[in-house]
């Protein structure tokens, strides 16, 4: 039992840290330090730098550009990016679709898609959820009917994050309407320029445009873009969702936010003319989050250690803990940031939009913080809602 990172890992962390310090564009860093998402171009530029370094696709096999890292290194890498903060490799490409193609795809598919994915030559988005299939993903209704060497796809996807940027979409579609729910589903890759695709923005409650509806109207997808076997797409989906959950702890990101929160609450003058960190209740709440985050960090380590040694693909009981606690902590951070801003959190406007704080009501650090709090309520809903996680724990791990 060795409960510390070893020297190689510590050296690796330093290497990542140095690389970020040297290579991350100042503009990108400052924008993210202020709590805003990087722009599309910033994400693309950074991923290409990472790709040039050989670090863009930590989860992929070495032959397709993966760096051959241990799970520990992957964790360190992500944590350092998150807490820098720096953009992460685009999840749709590198964590979701890429690993699926690498695992289930044909050699041709790998050659065609993976290098462009890694270099973010193509921006991918995820076509899973539907209006009637949220928590119950397998209830999806989008139909794909094979006609010659094409599938003709009809249906509607929703909550499609950053579809407005996307060149390609990976889709779950129903290819056998008579099979049982989770059977009869297939995994397709689809060029967003294909006729019949319409993207409609969904504006979320804080005013931001991050997610979309994607309408598919007689969209022709070549049969060669089927990943894995027809009607076995659920295997791809499960494989992908397993990877996703693993990253939902986002310890580094929360640490970065707590750091920002404490910076604000230690310097800005608040009620009674004192910094808010002097308020015992506020300080207690921040401290409780710090404690939970430390515990979560150790839980992530445990999951990594377990997974590293496991042969089967069955996830650790602790992975649902990562999702539940990870999102609770992030939501609490967003709430405390909003509270720190007091009335200045209330100015309306998408904090991501350019020039949105031109009115100069709130200090820059406070602008849009209520919006972020509103927006982050999604975290306990998406990626398998926290209620679904509890179902999983009760059934799969507790046997109830």
């Amino acid at each position, binding site marked *: 039992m060795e409960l510390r990172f070893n020297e190689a890992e510590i050296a690796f962390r330093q290497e990542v840290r140095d690389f970020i310090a040297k290579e991350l564009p100042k503009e990108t860093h400052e924008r993210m330090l202020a709590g805003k998402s990087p722009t599309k171009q910033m994400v693309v530029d950074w991923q290409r730098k990472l790709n040039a370094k050989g670090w863009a696709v930590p989860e992929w096999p070495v032959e397709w550009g993966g760096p051959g890292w241990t799970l520990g290194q992957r964790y360190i890498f992500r944590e350092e990016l998150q807490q820098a903060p720096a953009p992460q490799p685009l999840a749709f490409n590198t964590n979701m679709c890429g690993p699926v193609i690498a695992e289930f795809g044909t050699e041709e598919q790998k050659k065609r898609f993976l290098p462009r994915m890694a270099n973010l030559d193509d921006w991918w988005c995820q076509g899973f959820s539907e209006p009637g299939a949220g928590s119950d993903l397998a209830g999806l209704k989008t139909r794909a009917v094979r006609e010659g060497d094409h599938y003709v796809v009809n249906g509607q996807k929703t909550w499609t994050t950053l579809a407005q940027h996307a060149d390609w979409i990976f889709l779950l579609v129903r290819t056998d309407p008579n099979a049982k729910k989770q059977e009869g589903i297939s995994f397709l890759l689809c060029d967003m320029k294909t006729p019949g695709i319409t993207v409609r923005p969904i*504006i979320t409650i804080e005013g931001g445009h991050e997610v979309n509806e994607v309408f598919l109207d007689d969209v022709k997808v070549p049969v060669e873009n089927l990943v894995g076997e027809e009607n076995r797409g659920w295997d791809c989906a499960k494989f992908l969702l397993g990877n996703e959950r693993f990253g939902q702890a986002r310890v580094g990101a929360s640490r970065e936010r707590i750091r920002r929160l404490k910076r604000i609450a230690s310097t800005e003058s608040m009620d009674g003319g004192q910094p808010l960190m002097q308020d015992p209740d506020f300080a207690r709440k921040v401290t409780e989050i710090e404690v939970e985050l430390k515990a979560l960090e150790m839980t992530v380590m445990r999951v990594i250690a377990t997974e590293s040694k496991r042969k089967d693909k069955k996830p650790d009981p602790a992975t649902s803990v990562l999702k539940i606690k990870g999102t609770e902590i992030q939501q609490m951070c967003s709430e405390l940031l909003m509270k720190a801003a007091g009335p200045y959190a209330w100015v309306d406007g998408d904090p991501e939009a350019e020039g949105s704080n031109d009115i100069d009501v709130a200090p820059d650090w406070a602008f849009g913080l209520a919006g972020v709090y509103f927006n982050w309520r*999604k975290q306990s809903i998406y990626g398998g809602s926290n209620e679904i996680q509890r179902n999983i724990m009760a059934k799969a791990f507790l046997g109830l």
Partner: protein
Amino acid sequence: MDFDLTEEQRLLQDSVARLLGDKYGFEQRKGYMKSPEGWSREIWAQYAELGLLGLPFAEDEGGFGGGHVETMLVAEQLGKAIALEPWIPTVVIGGGFLRAGASAELRAELVPQIAAGELMLAFAQTERQSRYDLNDVATTAKKDGSGWVISGRKGMVIHGDSAGKLVVTARTAGGQRDHKGIGVFLVDAKDPGVTRRGYRTVDGQRAAEVEFANARAEAVLGNPEDGLPLVDQVVDETIVALAAEAVGCMQVAHDMTIDYMKTRKQFDRPIGSFQALQHRAADMLVQLEQARSMSYFAAMGVEERDPAERRKNMASVKAQIGRSARFVGQQSIQLHGGIAMTVEYACGHYFKRLTVNDAMFGDADYWVRFLANSGGLVAAA
């Protein structure tokens, strides 16, 4: 102890409910929000017609003679519609200052204008550094002949952009955080010394940044050397309205959630059939009922004569309402799932108003701390 409404109160409640039912559907509300002022002059005129704008003023001054219960009833209905009009700033806050701090002459001049819907008021109190502390006032008021001139910057002045007159707190003496030496002044928004920049708040209301550069006060409200007790009183009265507004919001958010749970299907059954979600809905109801109880208590507790006791009462109201609002708001989103995260769906707007409502004049944490420091509600001896 009797929670039944009088005939008059029931009429008042029903008439507001009917108006809002007809004219304040979620789609109609969107229209009002998109208008340049961000709310509806037409609806405002109808409020006037129903007597809502003169509600708290004496009948012989042109008002409706309503008390705190009436304020509560109206505010709850407005909360159900998440109404956008400047009713609380004008009628509850502005009206409160006029009733308790203005001369009979001034009231004789202004109340009819307010009651007729011609004059809106706003409360210019918050400053960039002040947060929720009513005594933290850097804006100054200086004697100038027989009157006063105001200089300084006020922020987050709710509905400050459409107000005809501003109720402004300003320091006449002492240091920035002294309790003594704060005056309350009425300033015409068109005064050359006043500059306003309006904007929208996250819950769909309007607000303004207001700069005062030697702006002339039209009137002093209360004692210019010791106006904080007046401010405290009016804020306490405002808490009656805020609490009721929150209860209205929570009621609708809860109802929408229950309805959605009955219709939304996942795993081939209504999600309302899942016991874990049922229990969450029950917990929301517990919070809603506790909040409703405290809204009633607000209308009663604000009449306490001793200002320190009154403030403790209102602190407990803010504490419970804020805690309930947070839980009901958050869970109404969670139980809906993604749909409630979209701006096109009403539920999120109730959540947003509830969030701001909690923080208005200090959030639940602020008031729990205040109450703890004041010895609480139950005497040890």
